[in-house]
């Protein structure tokens, strides 16, 4: 799209878009192409020689149980994070929307975790859930006789990174749910109340269906957040362990590429991840179209 009334100039528009094109080409397209080429090659760890091997890296990956395990872990982790943070955000937003007084005080008290770096959220939760002196593990041992130990138990470690990741994201979901709820016409709620619908019926029959576009959008955003931005949390708390049980796709790319120096495999993993994200984006764009029909 373009304006009807535009400026005429020969050189200026190129000059204006140049910085954007330069950074995009240098830091996006060039590395992406290099990565793509690298994914078809095998390079020795010193980077001296490389050989073109067609799709060998990809075939190897898709047959590698460790990679498939990592895909499973990533899906579990991102859906777990999305579920916990979206449901908590939704409950809190529904309550905040009901409360007439203190609405804005509540908002102030709920939005700040968004500004906490994922890695710092990791530090805070590591302290809370530490196996030997974390208050949660002491509590679990004392009252439930559960031996909580994320250093040794993969399931516990997964729970820990999900909690650290979801905690930070509650405020993001909260902001969107509150915005979505305020867009619902009061008359709809009042009409339902006149027809005898109680608060819970109204929530599940009116508010929630009308929030479904927001809900779906937040699903996508939370999953993308869990895929990428949680690198810091995993790096601080578990480093992919124990026994690879929290080795998500992005963490594995880092591990194989920078620690293991397996450049070809790491590049192939990046390419596969890129396709995965493009898939998610396409789904999201379809949803955007739906949303337009929905409201208009």
């Amino acid at each position, binding site marked *: 799209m*373009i*304006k009807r009334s*535009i*400026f005429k*100039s020969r050189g*200026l*528009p*190129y000059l*204006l*878009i140049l*910085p*954007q*094109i330069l*950074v*995009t080409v*240098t*830091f*996006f397209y*060039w*590395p992406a192409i*290099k*990565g793509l080429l*690298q994914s078809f090659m095998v390079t020795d760890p010193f980077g001296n020689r490389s050989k073109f091997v067609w799709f060998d890296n990809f075939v190897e990956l898709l047959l590698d149980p460790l990679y498939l395990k990592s895909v499973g872990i990533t899906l579990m982790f991102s859906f777990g994070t999305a579920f916990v943070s979206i449901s908590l955000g939704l*409950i809190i937003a529904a*309550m905040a929307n009901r*409360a*007439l007084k203190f609405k804005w005080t509540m908002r102030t*008290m709920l*939005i*700040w975790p*968004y*500004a*906490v*770096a994922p*890695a*710092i959220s990791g*530090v*805070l939760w590591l*302290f809370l859930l530490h196996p030997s002196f974390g*208050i949660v593990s002491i509590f679990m041992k004392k009252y439930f006789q559960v031996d909580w130990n994320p250093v040794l138990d993969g399931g516990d470690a997964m729970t820990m990174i999900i909690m650290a990741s979801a*905690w930070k994201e509650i405020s993001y979901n909260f*902001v*969107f749910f509150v915005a979505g709820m305020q867009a619902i016409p009061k008359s709809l709620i009042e009409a339902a109340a006149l027809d005898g619908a109680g*608060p819970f019926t109204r929530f599940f029959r009116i508010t929630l269906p009308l929030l479904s576009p927001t809900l779906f959008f937040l699903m996508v*955003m939370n999953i993308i957040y869990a895929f990428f931005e949680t*690198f*810091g949390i995993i*790096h601080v708390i578990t480093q992919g362990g124990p026994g690879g049980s929290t080795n998500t796709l*992005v963490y594995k*790319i880092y591990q194989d*590429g*920078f620690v293991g120096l397996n*450049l070809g495999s*790491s590049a192939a993993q*990046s390419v596969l991840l*890129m396709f995965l*994200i*493009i898939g*998610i*984006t396409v789904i999201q764009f379809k949803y955007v179209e739906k949303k337009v029909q929905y409201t208009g």
Partner: protein
Amino acid sequence: MVERTPILDFLTYFFLILGVVIVGFPVLYTIIAATLPLEDVSKVPMPFMFGDQFLVNIKAAWEKGNLGTQILNSFIMATGITIGKITVSLLGAFSIVYFDYKFRVIAFISVFCTLMLPVEVRILPTYEMAAVNFLEPVNYLVNLFSNVELELEWNLLDSYTGLILPLIASATCTFLFRQFFLTVPEELCEAAKMDGASPMTFLRKILIPLSKTNIAALVVIEFVYGYNQYLWPLLITTNPKMITAVIGLQNLIPQADDIPEWNIALAAALLVMLPPILVVLFMQRWFIKGLVDAEK
């Protein structure tokens, strides 16, 4: 609110306060730990009472972690990314919306293809290029289209440019400005042209003042984004004087064999997470606007 029953009101506030407690607890616990002396913080379980060592711990953290330098680095990085992104995308969006030229659509598409692909996906090739010679694409293109043998070299390791520049390559801000410019009335541009204003005068005197709230919103979002970066600064900095605060924090976390100085580590965590939280709280209005706008 349709009906008012004391029980529902009570439940609403009960759940709201529960939500605030869940969200606030990790930080409250951290603040308590940061006020305790070493012998109290290593007690099992840790006493849930404020101690009097807060300033002592903060001072120890500041010196031990070299936080002064690191927080300054984080500030420079976050500010650089914020200013860079906003400038680049403001100019780019202006060029795309207000001019008609040959490569306009190509430029538009090639920038927006990058919308959903974060730096984590192409991390290895981006790092290789930035760490060796990020002018490689420039050399290649010049050599391809002319007879000049260009061999420019510039590596970005351990520099502010390296921390900032690769993270400016993002289309979100450009997309946002484009959407906003399209809603600006056509008459403004016509009137400006009638009065003989040049494109740059129009941008400076009319478009930028109109975009003030959008710019404020993006400043909050991008500052938080830049300050909290983890994977990229972890790779591109090796010199302890150049690392950012979020990365440096990891060196203070006690490992298995260290003295468990969690009080100092957590005091440092509080200091490091404070600046973005303050930005979000003080610019709350713009933050919410930015959050909701940026994800449309």
